[in-house]
């Protein structure tokens, strides 16, 4: 305790000497907080956009062999029972009809090929679509109508606006061409790989258009209260479903499902897939983001350690007489060393506190800036903003890493200070 008091006094009496180092250290920690917070927000936005695109965090998919395979769920009583048996309490169940290929929207001779046309139960998923940012119109009045929501990218391609009549062309489950006359009810802002070529229509309309019977649909989506538990819940649901339905073995990705669908089987067979299983196409992107972030943080920590090391090296040189005196009045070498490290640690803690305030302010400021004009960036945005995520765990890891870098940087100067010979130090200064 006495050592800490001594270290604190040393810092206070020389505060001007430490000012720039403290500013640098605080800024470094603030930047770390900003980067990890924004990365967390970006990752969260990607996952939220993906969950809205696919309709859940966890999915049950049904397929009928005939002789190819038709995506269909006819009766979900067994799925609901399995959910109860597995003890899963979803925050929302989303029944959707998804059409993943060959969908096209036409207007005035212009066409836009759609990656996905999705039939939505608008009443059930109102909360999900409240998160979608509209350039014009909205999803009100979509239920039971021939309305269609298109992205701003599709709208631009077609030259269409809210209120325009467009033609939606899809294939039926048996491969026939079918069309419907639709009215654009909303144009949403999304140029990401999920939203740019996605259209949303009423589930009953799309179900009929692709030739499924009334009440049938293709995807039973489950929004979990804790999306992070999707993998664990997936195993439990799979186990519960296996008792009542014909089900594929546990699958990790959509690609695995495609392989399984090509195998020899009959009747209707079900698959359980997590949202992560759909995201192979963006996993490389998020992995690159994480790798870049780790590299950047490592570089910042190295700069912090070097900065502390250099400052204390000069400081020890300047304070050699002080350390000589301390040694002369009986302070042990290890205690001199600990004094330097304690000074560095107190400085580190103060800077982490100051950096936290600065970092959170920066996060708040950056999170409220709109990034609508940055091409290809939409996948990371929520309503045009980056958003951020504060995780206590990540904060603690950052703080510990910074303090460790500070101690590492101060370690060599501390050793040098402890090696000072009292007689030589006092003689030199005299």
């Amino acid at each position, binding site marked *: 305790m006495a050592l800490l008091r001594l270290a604190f006094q040393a810092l206070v009496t020389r505060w001007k000497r430490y000012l720039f180092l403290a500013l640098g250290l605080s800024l470094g920690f603030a930047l770390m907080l900003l980067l990890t917070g924004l990365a967390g927000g970006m990752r969260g936005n990607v996952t939220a956009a993906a969950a809205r695109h696919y309709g859940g965090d966890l999915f049950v998919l049904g397929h009928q062999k005939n002789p190819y395979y038709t995506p269909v769920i006819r009766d979900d009583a067994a799925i609901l029972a399995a959910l109860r048996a597995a003890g899963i309490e979803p925050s929302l169940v989303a029944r959707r009809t998804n059409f993943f290929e*060959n969908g*096209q929207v*036409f207007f*005035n*001779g*212009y*066409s836009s090929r759609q990656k996905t046309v999705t039939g939505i139960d608008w009443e059930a998923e109102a909360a999900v679509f409240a998160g979608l940012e509209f350039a014009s119109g909205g999803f009100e009045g979509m239920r039971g109508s021939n309305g269609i929501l298109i992205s701003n990218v599709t709208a631009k391609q077609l030259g269409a606006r809210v209120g325009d009549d467009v*033609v939606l*062309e899809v*294939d*039926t489950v*048996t*491969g*026939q*061409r*079918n*069309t*419907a006359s639709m009215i654009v009810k909303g144009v949403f802002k999304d140029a990401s790989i999920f939203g740019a070529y996605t259209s949303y229509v009423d589930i009953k309309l799309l179900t009929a258009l692709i*030739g499924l019977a009334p009440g049938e649909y293709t995807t039973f989506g489950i929004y979990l209260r804790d999306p992070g538990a999707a993998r664990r819940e997936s195993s439990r649901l799979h186990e519960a479903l296996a008792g009542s339905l014909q089900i594929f073995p546990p699958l990790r990705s959509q690609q695995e499902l495609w392989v399984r669908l090509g195998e020899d089987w009959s009747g209707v067979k079900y698959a359980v897939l997590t949202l992560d299983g759909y995201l192979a196409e963006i996993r490389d992107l998020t992995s690159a983001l994480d790798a870049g972030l780790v590299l950047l943080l490592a570089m910042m920590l190295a700069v912090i350690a070097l900065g502390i090391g250099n400052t204390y090296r000069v400081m020890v040189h300047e304070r050699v007489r002080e350390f000589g005196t301390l040694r002369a009045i009986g302070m042990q070498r290890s205690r001199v060393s600990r004094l330097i490290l304690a000074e560095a640690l107190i400085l580190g803690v103060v800077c982490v506190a100051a950096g936290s305030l600065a970092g959170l302010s920066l996060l708040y400021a950056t999170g409220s800036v709109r990034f609508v004009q940055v091409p290809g960036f939409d996948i990371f945005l929520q309503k045009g903003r980056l958003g951020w995520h504060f995780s206590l765990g990540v904060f603690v890891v950052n703080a510990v890493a910074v303090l460790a870098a500070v101690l590492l940087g101060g370690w060599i100067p501390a050793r040098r200070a402890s090696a000072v010979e009292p007689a030589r130090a006092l003689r030199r200064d005299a």
Partner: protein
Amino acid sequence: MTEKKRMRYSAVLAILLVLDTQLWADPDAKDLLRKVDSLVSFPDSDFSAEYTFVTNRPDEGFDTTQAAIFRRDAENKYLILLLAPKVDRGKGYLKIGDNLWFYDPVPRKYVFTSSRDRFRNSNARNSDFTRSTFASDYSVQQTSKERLGKYDCTVLSLKANSSEVTFPFAKLWISEDSLVRKGEDYSLSRQLLRTLLIPTYQGIGSRFVPQTIVIMDQLKGRVIDGKYIGDRTQITISKPSLAKLPDNLFTKAYLEKVSR
């Protein structure tokens, strides 16, 4: 009329309405469809020709694609080798039974594709190069007579027999020589999707091959001066031949070899 009688009449009327309209169609119509198919199919020999596709998109100009097409209708096979433009040279399609592959010589990869897809972004479909199967794919719902330019035509309104036929409804204008002069393809909701015109044929043996086919897209195009002008593809067929083709022509190995 008593209530009982009225109900009986209503029931009979309802039954008549739900019965296939083919009952009222010309009984010779099916024979006509069979004849149409037989005149442009080659079940007893192979067929090869050069096809030139010129696609005109209003506002965008012309795209030209040239291809050599080799058919063996008896075995439901075809091979299409792209000759032009230069950037597509060596690419090809191979159809064996119900399987259709697209081959790209640059990555040397085959991609499984669908007969329903557009051929090279033109208004033709990959299924347009197979033998004619109107008689087996469709039932005649209605027949009528109509003059189409210089031709007196029988107009057949068709409904697909199976839910797997790409266009669920179609309409054909057949001239007195049993050749299709005009066709219309409709979606399940009876939206007109494309119109085909075949003004001239060329004789080859006892069969016929169109000299030119014009396909007009009814959904893709441009509205110019208030008038809709659909994307249009003109297909010109030259050098038709019924000479026997080598068996190894309809193989992946052959396509890879000629693509080099």
